[in-house]
């Protein structure tokens, strides 16, 4: 799962899709996940990184990650696989 190469991501949680002109805001944890995805990290690595930064359990992260990436796909921010 990868974020499209042309998607611009700011440090403050602002995401811009130049192909469609749409922009989005993400909260800090969403920003962290987007950054990890930009670096082509796998879910296991992302989970490890998030869980070392935040007070969170495995199951909560997994279901929230699934929902979040579904929204990224819905907004056409992910590469087609």
């Amino acid at each position, binding site marked *: 799962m990868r974020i499209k190469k042309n998607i611009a991501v700011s440090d403050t949680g602002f995401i811009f899709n130049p192909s469609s002109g*749409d922009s989005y805001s*993400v909260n*800090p944890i969403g920003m962290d996940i987007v950054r990890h995805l930009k670096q082509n990290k796998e879910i296991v690595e992302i989970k490890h990184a998030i869980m070392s930064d935040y*007070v969170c359990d495995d199951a909560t992260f997994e279901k*929230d990650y699934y929902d*979040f990436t579904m*929204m990224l796909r819905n*907004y056409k921010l992910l590469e087609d696989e």
Partner: protein
Amino acid sequence: MVKKIYERPIIRPLNSGMMNKFGTRTEYLPVTHIDGVSVKSLIAQYGSPLFVFSERQMRENLRNAKRTFENRYPKVQFAWSYKTNYLNAICNVFHQEGSWAEVVSRFEYDKALHNGVPGDKILFNGPDKTDDDLRIAIKNNSPIHIDHLDELYRLTEIASEMNAKPRVAIRVNMDTGIYPMWDRFGFNYETGQAWDAINKILASGKLELVGLHTHIGTYMLTPSAYGVAAAKMADLALGIKNKFDTKIQYIDMGGGFASENTLKGSYLKGSDIVPSISDYAEVICTALLNAGFKNNDLPALFLETGRALIDNAGFLLGSVIANKRLSDGRKATILDFGVNILFTSFWYDHKISPAQEFGMHTEDTVLYGPLCMNIDVIRENITLPPLNAGDHVVVHHAGAYTVTQSMQFITLRPAIVMIDPKGETHVIKNNETLKDLEHNEKMPAYLQKFKLT
């Protein structure tokens, strides 16, 4: 390294030009405490969901309303509207503050008596009073507010049988310039029905006409309608004095003052548009004082305000069961209370606050209850920070008509707690048990056993 507080990751499309002038956030601050008692500790002690009432707020509301009316009018009497909330502890807070009781059924009448309200201080409203109800009310010298001619005739007969002269008022409906006009309660002013009833009562000599009552509507956002109503009531009272030389002892303006809840479909929040008690007081008192009563004939002003005195004193605490994504991309949060105990969510967009700290990001969410029913929607759309399973929420303005209209449906109703002015909590109703519910059920003998294969 200290780990950061986890918040569900969210992404939200930015739409330029779509914000209204009030911005997009619904809540800016968490509500962690009610009257100094933490929401978390209340739920830990009494469970979730949980109704919580602030005694301090109730007393403050009534004292403020009394002061506001008494500053403008010499004789004011509040009567607590039992149907708004008839938990005995709630009623007694208002009775301790001097309120009489206003009831609309025998059930409520008996509750008021049981609470210790003297019979002559129970105003008996409502369209459904049986012969037995009327007899009891006559015995207790309660003012009976007559709703229709059938009741008037029955009451006259019963009074003759009992050789008593009951104290009565007639309920009057009228055009006050609002839509819809409430014309289902009592006798109409404009068509002469009210005068017809008055003539019958005073000509018979079998009933003592002591008052006039009206209930022009509910959640009234137009105070001027009360001014029109008060003027018409005063006109009737003055007419009665002129025609029959009978002094009307009280004019009862009923209830209907709005609370700060937001009606569904309203563009502005309730708190921005709801008139204050003084707005209502000003028009009512002015109309009565200017009507032309001689000093000794000025009737007492009775008020049966319920909603405006208790709605903001009641809170419903609840917890998040789960989050899910709907097929159209909207976020949905399932709470542990539904329309069964928050019946008012059918017509209000209740203000709902998270009960724990949250970040600056929010998302549009649908709030569902836990009932397995499609209609179980607490808010069709609300902008809230991301809530996690187990988080708590506080529903505001849940004091009026929630407890009395709650339904026992597929689950047990929660406990109800009151916080006294010192910050002590008191259970005023235990949560329901299966035993409570099955107490009155009967099982025919032939149905007691079965065998499943």
